[in-house]
């Protein structure tokens, strides 16, 4: 028994901020203080508040330390662990809540969250199967194998109302039900861990923080549909997740929770890993299976659906990581419990990755139907530097934007669909007044042009033509008919692409035109970028009344575009100016403006 546990986050965010050094230092200092029999250091998965990493939580009191470096460790060990005096200066200080330091559970960031899929992330050591079992892990698998028929399992998942968390929101139980009756010598259960949307990292956190919950759920799915082999397709860019999955699979096999005759019930199920190699399209289900088979990851036409003819031509179900993470809890606590959270058509909770211009970047899990305002203002802590909230982009390159005027919209599948937006995998990129919506649309199009596999003409060529038009607009060379041309092309690409990538690629354009048409028009008609992003449309000018002639701007201009004599107003030569903004940054008198 340990009297105290030091939990250090070992997720990718905190690890990148140096949490591995913090762990080493804690182990060293605790041993030095002779506390190694009393205090245990645990490397956990993601706590969610990645912006303030590395994060350290000390139990039993739950003291929440943020941005801890190895240099802070001796003080924490000496003061907190040895003398019982928490180190106030290192504790999490919620910006709007005065100076009173709080424990983890009391912060606004966590108070409004309901953690189901992330229930064990940041709580257990993901590299120890015993810790997962200690919090009730593999109980659901035992319950399913010993007391339920496959039909009952499927019914339970159906009743819970769980819908796929990967993007399309198809009812998970229905997917299983369609696959179960198909007879074959082999069936497969696949897990989509090829989280490719830029700005989304909820699946990574589950894999890093609670890998066993995914293994357990896949075994449950295997039992429900009659499959004995599972594959997890995980992207190679997630080295920590891959390492922990490998450890988890090995430990589960050793304890005979994977392999032959699980729980002595005669049910066999095993799981193998397959690594992606950096192709966004492989997040699409048929492309993912083509890739596991060892081919170029191009999508296949449906039907036949994977439930009938999937991986290696056999009946297959494919669910995403977060979807699986919910399954053991649904089995343990019952469908009614899960269905009591969320809204009429969107049950349970959803994990979102908050990024972009927001104070608390990181992972949050909230009941479906939570107003966007709660996410942005309360949990996210608002927009930094007093800037104005402009829009949030959801669903990455397949999604759309929600403008500030819809800040009270309940976030669930159907409300977002009404404004042609999607939850997608759960990425939420917050944008402020300094972001140009045409530029954002162009950014996402660049992404899809790069990632289009090239199989369908509409997607391969259509996205490129749309990008060219957007590029023209951001350079001030657009024509007013370009807006209609974009919309026409968008519809064409949506309707004529085989897979989700092409069908959704035009979404960022459609939604930015819908809500920010005025910005497109300003670029085209007035040759002006209202947010001041599109370089070709900017011009810097010096206000002769404010300019003191200090020459600082002229000395900092990299292309010598500014001329003038000392103590006389200076002038910018627009022919030479490269619009780098150095002059404006350096001016001490606020005399330089950008339009």
């Amino acid at each position, binding site marked *: 028994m340990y009297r105290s546990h030091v939990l250090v986050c070992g997720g990718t965010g905190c690890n990148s901020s140096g949490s591995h050094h913090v762990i080493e230092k804690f182990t060293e200092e605790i041993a030095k203080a002779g506390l190694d029999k009393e205090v245990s250091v645990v490397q956990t998965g993601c706590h969610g508040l990645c912006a303030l990493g590395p994060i350290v939580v000390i139990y039993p009191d739950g003291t929440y330390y943020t941005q801890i470096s190895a240099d802070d460790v001796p003080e924490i060990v000496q003061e907190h662990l040895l003398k019982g005096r928490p180190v106030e200066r290192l504790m999490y200080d919620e910006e709007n809540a005065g100076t009173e330091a709080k424990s983890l559970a009391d912060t606004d960031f966590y108070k409004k969250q309901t953690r189901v899929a992330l229930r064990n992330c940041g709580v257990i050591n993901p590299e120890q199967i015993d810790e997962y079992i200690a919090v009730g892990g593999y109980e659901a698998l035992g319950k399913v194998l010993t007391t339920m028929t496959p039909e009952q399992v499927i019914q339970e998942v159906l009743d819970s109302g769980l819908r796929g968390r990967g993007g399309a929101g198809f009812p998970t139980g229905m997917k299983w039900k369609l696959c179960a009756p198909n007879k074959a010598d082999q069936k497969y259960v696949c897990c989509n861990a090829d989280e490719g949307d830029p*700005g989304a990292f909820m699946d990574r956190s589950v894999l890093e923080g609670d890998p066993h919950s995914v293994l357990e759920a896949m075994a449950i799915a295997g039992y429900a549909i009659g499959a004995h082999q599972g594959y997890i397709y995980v992207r190679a860019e997630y080295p920590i997740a891959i390492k922990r999955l490998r450890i988890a699979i090995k430990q589960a096999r050793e304890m005979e929770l994977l392999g032959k005759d699980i729980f002595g019930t005669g049910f066999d199920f095993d799981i193998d890993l397959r690594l992606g190699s950096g192709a966004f399209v492989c997040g699409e289900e048929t492309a993912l299976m083509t890739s596991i088979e060892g081919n170029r990851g191009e999508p296949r036409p449906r039907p036949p659906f994977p439930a009938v003819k999937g991986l290696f031509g056999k009946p297959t179900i494919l669910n995403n990581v977060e979807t699986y993470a919910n399954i053991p809890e649904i089995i343990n606590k019952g469908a009614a419990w899960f269905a009591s959270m969320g809204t009429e058509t969107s049950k349970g909770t959803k994990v979102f990755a908050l990024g972009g211009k927001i104070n608390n970047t990181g992972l949050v899990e909230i009941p479906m139907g939570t107003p966007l305002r709660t996410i942005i203002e309360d949990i996210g802590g608002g927009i930094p530097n007093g800037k104005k909230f402009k829009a949030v982009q959801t669903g990455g390159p397949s999604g759309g934007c929600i403008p500030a005027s819809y800040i009270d919209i309940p976030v669930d599948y159907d409300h977002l669909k009404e404004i042609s937006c999607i939850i997608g995998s759960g990425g939420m990129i917050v*944008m402020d007044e300094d972001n140009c919506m045409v530029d954002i649309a162009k*950014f996402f199009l660049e992404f899809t042009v790069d990632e289009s596999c090239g199989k369908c003409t509409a997607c391969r060529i259509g996205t490129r033509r749309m990008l060219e038009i957007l590029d023209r607009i951001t350079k001030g060379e657009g024509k007013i008919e370009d807006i209609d041309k974009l919309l026409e092309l968008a519809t064409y690409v949506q309707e004529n692409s085989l897979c989700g990538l092409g069908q959704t690629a035009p979404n960022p354009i459609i939604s930015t035109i819908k809500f920010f048409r005025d910005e497109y028009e300003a670029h085209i008609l007035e040759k002006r970028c209202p947010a001041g992003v599109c370089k070709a449309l900017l011009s810097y000018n010096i206000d002769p009344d404010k300019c003191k002639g200090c020459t600082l701007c002229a000395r900092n201009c990299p292309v010598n575009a500014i001329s003038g004599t000392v103590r006389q107003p200076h002038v910018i030569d627009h022919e030479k100016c490269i619009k780098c903004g150095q002059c404006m940054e350096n001016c001490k008198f606020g005399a330089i403006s950008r339009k």
Partner: protein
Amino acid sequence: MASTISSVPFTGTSEQEAKLKEIIASLKDVPGSLMPVMQQAQDIYGYLPIEVQTMIAEGLGIPLEKVYGVATFYAQFTLQPKGKYNISVCLGTACYVKGSGDIYEELKKRLGIEEGGCTPDGKFSLNSCRCVGACGLAPVMMINDEVYGRLTPDAIPGILAKYKD
């Protein structure tokens, strides 16, 4: 797309070849083993020149054009050798809105190379990458396995100076 034929002469050793053959033998009968073999081959050689692709094709008994097709489809496979220090700048959404484009430009300028290029002394190579998942630290770049977050263009010379040898 970057050039797919490497201009650098192939310098594989017999130990590397033996290791690759061992991997091929162990995975030959596993369904869908081409990608795992190629991933491990890239770990051994650092890249997948045509010589290595030929060994894989012959070893697994599949056409070279299929190996080449897979190698050129996935962004992680590289047909060019990497520098001693490989720099990847994240151009994912979160990093992009926080200015990673400027970081990328600064690196191109400082190193005098373009995307996918390698400095003549073989020291630095430069790539952009999709989201590395450290969005809380945006903008982010990686030099080999070391992550640098909350970057500004001014910080670049100092960071590059750490990789003198």
